[in-house]
């Protein structure tokens, strides 16, 4: 199987990249392990602010629908419920549908594998009832399952604040938000204040000392600076932030850098969102954890670069388009994240980790 552009991951960045490349007449294949397009957006009911034009503010699943609708205009090949399991010696990628394995040779690859949630560990953290906060959102919004009656939250990012609102809406009693740092991590203070106003206790400089229960979590000891107290809960949701999913980049022999504000290890890329491997481009949260608007823009920039390389967009047009997109990215993204992204790009030529397969 051959394709001009292979897009890996059908989340927001992947879909935007597919629209951009397919609209220029390129032959596009998009692969995702899920059975539906949209990625994590599908269970996101929170309002997404700061989306780039032409998108208005809308909820995550609405954006997924909007993007998916745009895709239907183009003759794109979909490989849903397919995964990449390896790389052949000639550079083609090995795809499986769990029954068969077949190669795809792509002129250009855009990897948009997104991010994964980080867990926070403490004694007995593997008890049932203890999960990441994103998992709770998936249970509630996708599977229509209430994961518990009363919960404590460990961590306080914006993502957590959004989901806490949704959990309260479905009747889950939130007994407290525990943050290890001296301050709440969320940037959108409006959402934090709303939770304050309804009387939710926030504990900073705090952590879980231990969870207890037989077969499921029943209680947790919460360690404050001056004392320890016990809460009785059947749900503990941990929010350790998110990190780029790197497995495929590693297999493709891409180089890596490290950026705390980008979520940790991040594949090296340049201004064109081209990785250290010539025909491999990167988009979305894999380029560094950011706001939804930024994810869409990175997908567009990567697609613009690919269109230029495959000569369906002139160099001048591509440069002009890219420059505008970069300006928009700067305006949509939190300043410190954007600055770290720029720093990451500057280290493109001298990555921290390269040639990982050469002993």
């Amino acid at each position, binding site marked *: 199987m051959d394709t001009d552009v292979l897009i890996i991951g059908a989340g927001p960045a992947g879909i935007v990249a597919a629209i951009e490349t397919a609209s220029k007449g390129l032959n596009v294949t998009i692969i995702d392990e899920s059975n539906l397009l949209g990625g994590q957006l599908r269970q996101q009911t929170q309002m997404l602010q700061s989306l780039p034009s032409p998108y208005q503010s809308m909820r995550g699943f609405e954006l997924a629908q909007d993007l998916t609708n745009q895709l239907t205009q183009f003759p794109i090949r979909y490989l849903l419920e397919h995964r990449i399991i*390896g790389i052949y010696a000639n550079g083609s990628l090995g795809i499986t549908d769990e029954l068969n394995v077949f190669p795809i040779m792509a002129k250009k690859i855009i990897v948009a594998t997104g991010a994964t949630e980080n867990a926070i560990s403490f004694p007995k953290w593997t008890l049932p009832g203890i999960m990441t906060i994103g998992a709770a959102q998936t249970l509630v919004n996708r599977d229509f399952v209430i994961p518990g009656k009363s919960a404590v939250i460990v961590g306080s990012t914006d993502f957590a604040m959004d989901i806490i609102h949704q959990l309260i809406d479905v009747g889950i009693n939130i007994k407290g938000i525990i943050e290890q740092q001296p301050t709440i991590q969320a940037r959108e203070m409006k959402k934090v204040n709303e939770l304050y106003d309804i009387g939710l206790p926030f504990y900073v400089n705090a952590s879980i000392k231990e969870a207890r229960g037989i077969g499921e979590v029943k209680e947790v000891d919460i360690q404050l600076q001056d004392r320890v107290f016990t809460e009785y809960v059947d749900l503990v949701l941990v929010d350790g932030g998110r990190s780029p999913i790197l497995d495929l980049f590693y297999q493709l022999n891409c180089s890596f850098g490290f950026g705390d504000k980008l979520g940790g290890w991040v594949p090296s890329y340049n201004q064109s969102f081209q990785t250290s491997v010539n025909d491999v481009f990167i988009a979305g949260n894999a380029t560094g954890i950011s706001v939804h608007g930024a994810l869409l823009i990175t997908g567009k920039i990567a697609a613009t670069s690919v269109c230029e390389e495959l000569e369906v967009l002139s160099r001048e047009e591509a440069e002009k388009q890219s420059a505008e997109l970069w300006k928009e990215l700067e305006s949509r993204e939190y300043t410190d994240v954007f600055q770290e992204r720029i720093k990451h790009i500057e280290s493109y030529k001298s990555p921290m980790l390269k040639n990982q397969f050469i002993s």
Partner: protein
Amino acid sequence: MDGKYETIIIGGGVVGNGIAYHLSERYKEGVLVLDKKYPLSGTSGSTQAWVWVHNKTPSWYAELNYYSAELYPYLSKKIGDVEYKRTGGLSPFFQEKDKEKALYLAESYEKIGIKIKVLSKEEVLVKEQCINPKVVGATYSSIDGNVNPFRLIDRYMRSAKKNNVEYSTYNKVTDIKKQDGQYIIVSDKKNYMCKNLILAGGTWSNELGNMLGINIPIYQLRGQILVSEPLKPFLRHTVSGLRQANNGEVLMGYSMEKKGFNRSTTLDVIQETANMAVHYVPSLRKAKIVRAFSGIRAMPEDGFPILGTVPGFENLYVAATHSGVTLSPLIGTLITELILDGETSFPIDNYSISRFN
């Protein structure tokens, strides 16, 4: 004794550590092991770790492996549990014409006292029920088995350290000089001086030899290994290309590729390996593969170990070989004898570096 040692071993793989430990049993002062990365980061940490004798040819080479395998139970008693299991080794064949080769192998081993049996189809299937019923026969050797390479090297190191062996890791040797009957080792961290120098650099032996103007003809031979999900214990023997580890994972690997130091995996070889494994053990078709990794073998030009002194270089020893896991207890013993007694209890003339010119 800043930087001065009686003996320095370059290379902290299974061979270097085997020598360090055995040397330290008799000699408790002034031994240093240098490793460019960390023990287990190279070949020794990416192997199926068979302790394997049978179907190594010619018989004098099988004999070397045999004596080393014989040392394993004793070694485990000295350094601790290394998960050594003498499972017996089974090499099935699927064509009638291979039977003759098997019989010839058995006969030539008989002469040196190594017993291997040629099993009929029925005997194979009684011994190992999961083998493909299309099997024609197999050679079987009771001395073959496997070991946990991580435990083996860890135990070697702990025991050697107890006997005062020092280690310097992430410390690459960049030059070696001879000076006033001593060797000067230039490394990333500092310069060392020693009387006895042992080159046990495995895949890097060539580079080390070049520093002294010696040709140690070792090339790199990549092997890709697949690891299954943990399965309930079903594979009783070490079978050609396959073994089941204590945790239930089945390791599969057959490939040999000349790719230098490149340790990537390719789906081509992964698929070939999976097909081979299923050919030998059809029930593996249902197993899930959880990962694949590559290891780089240190392969001497003619396939046989390069062991012993180096003509023209006093107190210089080389130990460069394939099958380092199998051979490490014996190589450790022999090099120790060579250094401390000036001779070995088992002839190693066949393995001298002087056979290359």
